[in-house]
């Protein structure tokens, strides 16, 4: 129902307005796609962090490990207390948490991102269908005009 009424409104627009509407909608769809990709990347990084945490929690204290100092320099060391972890919460603040709290933090952030992603997907899909409709109506009108000659 909603789709057919919006289609009627789109059909009332002039050619110029139709073109403008389609361009605008296309731009917005692209923006939404970029945002969706960003959220997916961030979620992936959080999931890697979460699994790294889990792995760390399995290691015994005193275990020999290699510590990265730069991207290409590692130094040997031993694992100290893996019960405490430092979490980067943003704007330069770090919070000392227990391993359990750290895992919980990752889970919470991942859940938040997933819900943002779903909300964004809904809006993006609606906008895409508007863009598609505008395009279809535009095509139809152009076809109407040309065979007239």
């Amino acid at each position, binding site marked *: 129902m909603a789709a057919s009424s919006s289609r009627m409104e789109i059909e009332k627009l002039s050619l110029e307005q139709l073109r403008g509407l389609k361009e605008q909608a296309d731009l917005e769809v692209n923006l939404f796609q970029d945002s969706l990709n960003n959220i997916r990347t961030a979620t992936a990084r959080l999931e890697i962090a979460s699994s790294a945490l889990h792995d760390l929690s399995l290691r015994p204290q005193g275990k020999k490990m290699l510590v990265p100092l730069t991207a290409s320099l590692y130094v040997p060391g031993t694992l100290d207390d893996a019960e405490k972890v*430092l979490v980067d*919460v*943003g*704007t*330069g*603040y*770090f*919070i*000392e*948490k227990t391993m359990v709290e750290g895992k919980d*933090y990752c889970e919470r952030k991942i859940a938040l991102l997933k819900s943002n992603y779903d909300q964004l997907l809904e809006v993006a899909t609606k906008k895409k269908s508007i863009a598609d409709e505008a395009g279809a109506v535009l095509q139809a009108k152009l076809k109407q005009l040309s065979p007239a000659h």
Partner: protein
Amino acid sequence: MAAVKELQRDLENKANDLNKLQKDIAKNHQVRKKYTIQLGENELVLKELDLLNEEANVYKLIGPVLVKQDLAEANANVRKRIDYISAELKRLDATLQDLEEKQNSKKEAIFKLQQRIQALQAGKGKA
């Protein structure tokens, strides 16, 4: 004839003004976006800090140094930052509205000028 030239010069000036206004509006949007992102980040941090009990350790990264901070102090700092950013956003909103009003009146003035020029040129054509 001279009248048309002068009107055209005026039109050019107004067009330049409009251009500058539009650039200012675009810049306003950019700054606004930056502030909105920072506001969101700070609010997330505040939420995390609120979840902590009194004894949890909080550290702030100042340059290359991680400095231990008092939880109350960290809370106060983040809150102050949030207030500052909100105030800046409000100020930007007011500026944006003002700029948009100026833009609209400039567009109207340009339109009227264009009409006068066209009328004059049509009149000359007939004569």
